């Protein structure tokens, strides 16, 4: 029954126009970034490289597919949660708003299976969005700009990663980015179990991310004790793969926190949905 209903959930997602909004928006945004980089990439990059030109000389293809992919990831990873929440925040509340939840819940499928099938379908959608982002960022950028060493400016300074040492970093980086987005997906499904309209959980998800991100960036010691446990603190863990020395321990810690959040949100959704009186 779980697999059958997961298949149902995928059909519903595929049949809803809003599901393609994410793919369309990503494609458009990446097209705009690629166009901007093609038209004016050298001046954009020189803003970073100029400050190092007294000590360093940059040779070769600096504006390459790897750099563009990194820039795209940096710019878009903040916005992708909204595109994810647009679909996953509607998974339970949308059914309540439409009235189909009572049709569904009066069938011989357990409520736990209903939630799990929605979570699995939401996770697959999140994976597809991540893969689409990866495909456009990496492969299309490489096709247009070619390959080369990756220059990354992070808190340690300027890091130059050889071309041969980059692909695995992108691969693992996308895996952690997927986990971050899956946390957003689990959060919006959880909020969706509390709501009977589609907009509420989407807005609430983005509000929570926004508030947590602001708390995380505030340099106030009062929040220092909670910052390490906030999922938003670990959503940028993918960037750590682009350090000269990859801090695997910190990344493992981020993965654990994200996974714990995913299971907590899922557990709370199951509890809420199993207890819920369906009166809509």
């Amino acid at each position, binding site marked *: *029954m779980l697999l*059958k*209903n997961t*298949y*149902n959930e995928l*059909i*519903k997602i595929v*049949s*809803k*126009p809003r599901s393609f909004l994410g793919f369309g928006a990503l494609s458009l945004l990446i097209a705009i970034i690629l166009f901007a980089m093609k038209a004016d990439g050298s001046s954009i990059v020189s803003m970073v490289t100029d400050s190092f030109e007294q000590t360093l000389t940059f040779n070769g293809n600096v504006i390459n597919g790897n750099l563009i992919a990194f820039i795209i990831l940096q710019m878009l990873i903040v916005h992708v949660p909204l595109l994810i929440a647009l679909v996953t925040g509607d998974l339970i509340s949308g059914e309540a708003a*439409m*009235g*189909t939840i*009572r*049709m*569904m*819940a*009066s*069938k*011989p*499928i*357990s409520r736990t299976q209903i939630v799990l099938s929605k979570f699995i379908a939401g996770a697959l959608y999140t994976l597809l969005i991540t893969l689409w982002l990866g495909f456009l960022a990496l492969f299309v950028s490489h096709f247009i700009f070619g390959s080369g060493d990756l220059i990354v400016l992070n808190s340690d300074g300027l890091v130059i990663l050889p071309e041969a040492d980059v692909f695995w970093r992108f691969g693992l980086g996308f895996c952690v980015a997927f986990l971050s987005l899956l946390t957003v997906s689990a959060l919006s499904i959880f909020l969706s179990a509390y709501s009977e309209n589609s907009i509420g959980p989407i807005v609430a998800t983005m509000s929570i991310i926004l508030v947590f991100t602001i708390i995380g960036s505030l340099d106030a010691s009062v929040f220092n004790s909670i910052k390490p446990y906030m999922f938003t603190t670990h959503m940028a863990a993918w960037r750590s793969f682009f350090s000269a020395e990859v801090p695997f321990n910190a990344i493992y810690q981020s993965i654990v926190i994200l996974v714990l959040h995913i299971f907590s949100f899922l557990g709370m959704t199951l509890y809420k949905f199993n*207890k819920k*009186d*369906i*009166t809509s």
Partner: protein
Amino acid sequence: MSETTVIQVKDLNKKFGDFEAIKNVSFHVNEGDVFGFLGPNGAGKSTTIRCLLSLIQPNRGEIQLFGKHLHTNRKEILSRIGCIIEKPDFYKYLSAQKNLEIFARISGAEVSAKEIEGMLEFVGLADRAKHKVKGFSHGMKQRLGIAQTLLHKPDLIILDEPTTGLDPQGIIEVRNLILRLKNEQHKTILLSSHQLSEIEMIANRMVIINKGHSIVEGSVSDLLNAEELLVKFEVNDADKAKTLLSAYTVKAINTTTIEILLNRNEISSINKKLVEANVLVNAIEPKRKLEDFFIKTIQN
């Protein structure tokens, strides 16, 4: 409990906050019954039906379906039930066929594509099978709802206000469909409706609930025949008829009609008496029997 009892509800209670939606509701439905579930708005009909389908968790009471406790045999029981609750809602962005496929997959039975086509044919939607539900009228959605209800060949069908919003033609179609399900397929049907005439026409047993309590339960004919019936006689001389029927309570009279309260089995003898006294009887019309019984019961 009898082996043929399909639904057994005992002392069912449900509270929403401080509001007691149902209080000690009890009734039973036998196999093959078309069971009328009556009550005014807010009486607790929908809450009771939702409890039967495990959409709402009762605070107290017992529900057994097919001789098994709902709480411990939910999946098995629900696989034998088909239902429409209040109004059939579907995925508007999907076609009629896709909607049925989705519900068939979680119905607990194997339903083939051919059976889905056959069901769409049965409810007269075969030519709209590929059309999205968002373009359907209320009547079409109601028919699709009935198709969804019957898809997995349930033993018990629960219909909560199945004719709400339908035009007269639609009401007749649904009524005939229920009668076909009863007569040809011997399904057990629990029918909640505001259309009292409909219940009177097709139900053999019923319960009336009001303010969360079940008030009366029993066979429709027994309950109604135990009551005096208001009958309108259309005659050529109402005054003469009134004199002849002085032993009865006359409720209304004009030159050609007289309305009296009597028992059903007295109708033929009164007719004979009038005819023998040269009073021509042009028509005999029982007046809205269940409606009167319902109002009287609720008011009491």
